């Protein structure tokens, strides 16, 4: 499975898509790499505010998601600025971090 994911990631990178797409299903945690990561949080977890997510994981620099052609973003600077939206399961988010972090939301 891990080998398959690695090949998949490399394939996507080859197609010129910046960042890393990770589809997690049944794992307890998801690895966020340094830089920009587009992730689908497909596992079940209790929704939480993005501000609280950044309190737990201060390595996260920004979280962005799009809904109804509108972009929502939150930046981990000055104590957190931007729309404090809810992180929910089964939505796609773009997360940037300045270092690798394991996200465990269960």
């Amino acid at each position, binding site marked *: *499975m891990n080998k*398959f994911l690695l090949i*998949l990631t490399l394939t996507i990178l080859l197609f010129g*898509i*910046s*960042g890393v*797409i990770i*589809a997690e*299903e049944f794992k307890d945690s998801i690895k966020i790499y340094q*830089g*920009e990561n*587009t992730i*689908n949080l*497909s596992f079940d977890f209790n929704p939480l505010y993005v501000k609280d997510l950044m309190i737990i994981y201060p390595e996260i*620099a*920004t979280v*962005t*998601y*799009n809904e109804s052609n509108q*972009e929502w*973003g939150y*930046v981990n*600077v*000055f*104590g957190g*600025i*931007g*729309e*404090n939206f809810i992180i929910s399961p089964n939505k*796609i*988010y*773009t997360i*940037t*971090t*300045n270092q690798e972090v394991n996200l465990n939301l269960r």
Partner: protein
Amino acid sequence: MKKVLALNIITMFLILPLCSAAHYIVGIVEDAKDGTQANGHTILLWNPLVGMQDNLSDIIGPLGNSHTNNIYMIDCELLNSGCNVSNTLSLRVINNGDNYISGDKNVTVTGFGYDLVDNITLNSPPNITYVNVDDNLTTPQNEIDLIPAETKEVSCIAIAMHYEGENSIINATGRFFDNVLSNYGSSEDNNENYWNESCFINYSYGNSNEVEISCKFDVWYYANSQNWNCTVNVTDNLSASSKSGDISLINPLLALGLDSLVNFELSGGEMVTDESTLNVTNYGNVKINLSLSGYAFEENDGYAMNCSEGEIRNISLDYEKFNLTATNEGSISLSEFEQKYTNLTSYPVVKKFDLDYRKDDSTNEAINETYWRIYVPSEITGNCQGNIIFGAVQAQGD
């Protein structure tokens, strides 16, 4: 398991175009030094290499993207030209109509999710605290007396202060205009609008935040008699400006000018001189009628002229006549003389003349002719000399 994973991957590919990368440009805008809050003002972001036409904006503070006092947050990826690592972007608080702006600040895009811009300070515009317009006569105040046929210097003095320091004030202009018939935006015209595009700024005045501004205007005698407004406009080094004005009354000016002596000539055998023409010029700023009277030696002496030779040395004032409306050239009989001309009198008599004041800046059109003749009795010889007194009286309809 593999089916679920494959389905997930397909879903990812389908929704991938919907999620775009974001890169935020964030920073603080400090309140202006006069206490005006930065919140609510608009900040603009653009790539100087592309031009300002491709720009993004945010409202500083809680109403903007940051939802936080004094902070802005702009996703530079939303620029039409996008933003890439090592791009230099520019930011500026733009004028919302209250003249509070900022200087430009640059930031270089890096690889991580956001970039922090150096603090920007909201620039307070210059503030004009005092304006006074008057001529050199301090009494009465706020009244300007023009000079016939000349210009009068009118001074507009203003005091301006700038929280950013007096040296931030780099230019001052003034407009002096008829507050009824003209306005600040009208073009220059000697009757109603004067411009001074480079007023003197005295940086020695007051404290380090104050300047004195002196705008001078050479106002022509035919400037309208109305309330006039002097508005001073002060601009700082960020092109923020403020203006303020003061009003003074330009008094009516009654004045006329005669460009020559009347020279009467008697043709052979005639008793009435040829018609002489005398041009009257309105050198004031109101429409005028004429008051006319005459004398030979001294006022009210009853004579038109005193002569050097002959049995009779004086010509009666009744014999000098004028026509203010029509010319009658050539020789005329005594009865025509009586009929077509009006007697000059010892005392001033106001006659309708309706000579309007000058309206044309390039040519003086405020000139009318008057026509004169005198009956010379046969006993008179030699040269004769007399006086006609012209007075200007304000005509109705002005």
